[in-house]
């Protein structure tokens, strides 16, 4: 059975193969509150009574279940007919995300184990498949609803959401799919754009490489249909890197660099040949862009860049963390752009790759932020580090992502001000991220209590224009404990980094009857407009601040401080927000 929300779009748009099949749709489902499934070998012949619409979590309406009770162990099962054209190839089973840990069996045999609720995993299941007849996939997912040392983001540890915390998500919440590949195939590529030299670095990762076969990869790079590079190189190791100069002239608004205003993407096609026979074809893309700090200025493509971002938590009515459709993801990007924002801080969530695809394609910079835990322990450090490595790895190629935020507002490290161990963790996350990715900026702890960060980011929900302007007109007052939190913890200090206000606003305004929560409140549309204008104008009028991130894009459940409501309906005209972002209003006298 398929529904209108089958999410049948290609789940890995950065690296696309034609031989694939979605396993979204109806699966058998079972709560296992007693945790007897393993003992009873539910991964065997057992059938489950309930039904669920994958990839939606059981808490969501779109899953067909829709209960907010905690059920920390859940099981999924379905039959799969491997299409005839895939036979004889290696079959790879992919999971976009399963919260928090997963075990996967194919025909009763264990195929994969994964931990980490926001990152993808896959398994080569070829040897587990039956020669004839349908195959059966069983998944056991375990979540730990009340364990606040797990990376969880905004998922509340109580059943009913409150304040800034929302309904939980358990189990599968991103697409499940299979693809067919030859034993020798390109397992992925990494892109290293270098605009200073107009070179694209490409690292080829070839699965099944051996030096016995003659393995070659043909790379064709084109821009809007024009081929700009076409080459074939012998693969002499499983990981091989090269750089290609792109002929381009970038000035006077010309050229092919990527920016929110000109989301130029190069298309790439890879073909893998083994002993002269074509074995794999992959379509991909990259963008040439650079983010850097130069003489204290935040720069995009070597020019000062003023960030106008909005906080986007990626919650959807009906789907919770899972967008109901690809269009819904695309529409969020379009709405953000039409309100005059050039960026988004994707808050406490590793978003679906389709979202990043639309940001790449339509032009929106992204701050990629981890979903944090809320309490610190050594076990937390291990789990969080593993998941973050996978997250950075998954999204390494998206030109839209320019900043990584492993930690936010001291979540998971609540005692960082006084606890050296937690400071060490924040420093470790900063350096780990830099060691995995030298092309992006990294924030050790967004909002306050920074250790080392490439940008000085501050959260301040002050709503009064005059107070904001006064505070952010001079460096000393700007750094003087906004929100009563120190900007830097002991041993670290401001050293000329660009200052950005990465959370502010949060003005609540509800058109209907129900009451909700916000950082400050508006009484009607005109008041809302005035208040939004006041705080954004204050940022624009500050001589120090080089960018902002307004809280927030949409209402989320009981939190009603969105510019749009939870259903993405504008509270005031989009053009009004756009005009505010563009600084087109003169300040009204009463602000």
């Amino acid at each position, binding site marked *: 059975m398929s529904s209108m929300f089958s999410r049948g779009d290609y789940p890995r748009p950065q690296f696309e193969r034609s031989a694939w099949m979605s396993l979204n749709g109806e699966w058998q489902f079972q709560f296992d509150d007693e945790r007897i499934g393993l003992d009873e070998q539910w991964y065997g012949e057992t059938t489950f009574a309930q039904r669920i619409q994958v990839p939606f979590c059981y808490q969501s309406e779109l899953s067909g279940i829709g209960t907010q009770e905690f059920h920390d162990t859940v099981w999924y099962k379905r039959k799969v007919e491997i299409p005839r054209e895939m036979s004889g190839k290696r079959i790879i089973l992919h999971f976009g995300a399963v919260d928090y840990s997963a075990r996967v069996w194919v025909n009763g045999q264990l195929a994969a184990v994964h931990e980490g609720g926001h990152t993808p995993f896959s398994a080569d299941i070829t040897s587990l498949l039956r020669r004839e007849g349908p195959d059966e996939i069983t998944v056991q997912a375990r979540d730990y609803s009340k364990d606040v040392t797990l990376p969880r983001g905004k998922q509340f540890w109580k059943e009913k959401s409150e304040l800034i915390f929302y309904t939980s998500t358990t189990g599968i919440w991103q697409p499940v799919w299979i693809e067919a590949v030859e034993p020798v195939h390109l397992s992925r590529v990494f892109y290293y754009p270098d605009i200073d030299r107009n070179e694209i670095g490409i690292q080829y990762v070839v699965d099944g490489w051996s030096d016995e076969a003659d393995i070659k990869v043909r790379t064709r790079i084109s821009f809007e249909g024009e081929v700009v590079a076409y080459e*074939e*190189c012998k693969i002499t190791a499983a990981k091989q*890197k090269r750089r290609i100069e792109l002929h381009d002239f970038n000035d006077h608004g010309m050229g092919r660099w990527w920016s929110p205003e000109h989301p130029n993407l190069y298309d790439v096609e890879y073909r893998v040949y083994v002993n002269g026979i074509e074995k794999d074809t992959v379509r991909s893309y990259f963008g040439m862009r650079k983010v850097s700090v130069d003489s204290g200025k935040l720069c995009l493509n070597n020019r000062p860049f003023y960030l106008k971002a909005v906080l986007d938590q990626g919650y959807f009515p009906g789907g919770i963390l899972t967008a109901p459709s690809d269009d819904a993801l695309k529409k969020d990007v379009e709405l953000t752009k039409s309100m005059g924002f050039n960026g988004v801080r994707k808050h406490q969530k590793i978003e679906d790759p389709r979202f990043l695809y639309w940001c790449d394609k339509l032009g929106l910079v992204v701050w990629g932020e981890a979903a944090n835990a809320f309490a610190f322990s050594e076990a937390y450090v291990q789990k969080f580090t593993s998941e973050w490595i996978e997250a950075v790895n998954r999204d390494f190629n998206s030109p839209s992502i320019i900043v990584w935020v492993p930690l936010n507002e001291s979540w998971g490290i609540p005692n960082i001000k006084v606890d050296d161990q937690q400071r060490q963790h924040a420093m470790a996350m900063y350096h780990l991220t830099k060691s995995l990715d030298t092309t992006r900026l990294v924030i050790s702890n967004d909002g306050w209590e920074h250790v080392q960060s490439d940008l000085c980011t501050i959260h301040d929900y002050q709503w009064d224009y005059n107070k904001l302007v006064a505070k952010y007109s001079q460096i000393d007052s700007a750094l003087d404990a906004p929100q009563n939190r120190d900007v830097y913890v002991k041993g670290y200090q401001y050293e000329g980094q660009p200052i950005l206000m990465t959370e502010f606003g949060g003005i609540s305004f509800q058109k209907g009857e129900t009451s909700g929560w916000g950082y400050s409140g508006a009484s009607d549309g005109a008041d809302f407009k005035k208040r939004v204008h006041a705080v954004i104008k204050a940022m624009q009028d500050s001589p120090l601040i080089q960018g902002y991130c307004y809280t927030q894009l949409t209402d989320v459940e009981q939190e009603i401080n969105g510019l749009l409501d939870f259903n993405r309906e504008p509270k005031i005209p989009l053009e009004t927000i756009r005009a505010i972002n563009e600084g087109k209003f003169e300040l009204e006298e009463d602000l």
Partner: protein
Amino acid sequence: MTTIRPEYPRPQFIRDSWQSLNGVWSFAFDDDDLGLKEKWYQDTGKLPLEITIPFSYQSELSGVEDKRNHERVWYQRTFDIPAEYAGKRVILHFGAVDYECRVWVNGQRAGNHRGGFSSFSLDITELIESNQNVITVMAKDYLTDLTIPRGKQYWKEKGEVMWFTNMTGIWQSVWMEFVEEVRLEKVRFTPHLDTNEIEIQSFVEGWNERSRLELATRIEFNGEKIAEECRTIFAGVEAWRVNLRDFNDHGMGRWWSPEKPNLYDVTFELKADGVVVDRIESYFGMRKISVDNGKLCLNNRPYQMKLVLDQGYFPQSLLTGPTDDAIRRDVELCKAMGFNGMRKHMMVADPRYLYWCDKLGALVWGEMAAAYVYSEQYAHRMMDEWKEVIERDYNHPSIVVWVPLNESWGVADIYYNEQQQHHAQSLYHFTKSVDSTRLVISNDGWEHCKSDLCTVHDYAKDPEVLHKRYSDIEHILADMPGLEGRKFIYNPGFSYGGEPVLCTEFGGVNYHSEPDAPVVEPKAENENEFVQQLVDVINPFLVSKLVQGYCYTQLTDTETEICGLLTWNREPKVPLDIIKRINEGQTNFQGMI
């Protein structure tokens, strides 16, 4: 095929389809400037003498050996195009013609060139007649013009002090090669050691959009295939980098150094619509020269340079190596004496010399031949010639430092003349702008503007003076060792900024081991005294905590100079091993000589 310098003249970029034009040519002096008027290029038989190319008429091996100044000379010879190359484009190459020349083929002007030390080539295809072609060259030198880059060539007929016999006209190999319309004109190799990548820039001549051009590249190391690739060519100039995956530690790996002169072999094949139209054999070395925390580093590790000054003069052939073996032998002798490099002084080395340095492992400081008087015209000409030199030799891993100016030659007033400072600065920055991989010295020895190294020349002989002077930078800057207190190390407006300090000329110990060598005072009287004096001047730099390298003056005696470690005929004055031990720090040689 000729037996005179028959080896391939451009070993960094080899094509099969070539032919040497070295050997006997007709020759004439034209002191009365009749050649042009009488159109000597239109016929054969007007040049009464014969000369053996590529040796200049002043040298013995030329067969002319006339030491008098003749500023205008003519060369002529006939040649055939071998049948196998019929229909190909014909490129005529000149290794070097001092100072300027005009070239005719079959009576028609083929081109001209100015600059006595840089190479040039001419496409003469349209001038070729089916058989029996005639090539005529008129070379003009300005033997007393001190504003043209000349190096050690004296402006008087007889060499004196540190200046030597002049050279005029052709003095490096002349050759032809046969190529297709579409060809690989050159490549530039830029090693990126830190990422273990080789950057390749291809220059495809005759590139067009009509045919599908592909360039196949194969990189090998000691026969092991490292990379193999084929790329479509979309533009005349393209660049890409290949990762070489290499483990470099514990003495392993494939980086290039004087101790381990590892070279990667490269084969390029250019294909047009699938057909191979050009094939090149080349090589590169992975090495990096840098200054890191005030330390001069080779391949990211501190490296002490032990150089010897090499002026490249040969008794019978002056600046032209008499044979490829002789060139190779000079490199081998330097290494045998414990040096790890040479400052190639006041001349631009023959590419064969650089080839042997690449191959055998020796660092080279590439230095321009200086003029002696400044003028705006000099500045133009210097710049033109220098840029040809650095472009020609860009790919040689052995070259690690560029020295456009030495001891204020050509910029004699640089200390107080801002124009001359601008000239030195422009050469420094120009060199950096076309070669970001090497270090550059604005003015070697003294009166530096901006330089990547602080190089001083110091001929003090007293070890106590040297020990004291090179104990800290303040002493060096205050002593002004160059000409004993008369030359500042830095010009006004420039100052020492923590650059590595090297003494790049010193020693110059005179000792003649042959009875007929000229007597220059002061000199060592016997081998023992010679060795002691060498120890006295070399050892202070080895023990100095400050000095990171040196360049001993000099490799061989040259004409009137007898300060060589070897005689002019390359005979050791003391056993090579003694010099090696001195370079290694041994100070006591009692009973060994």
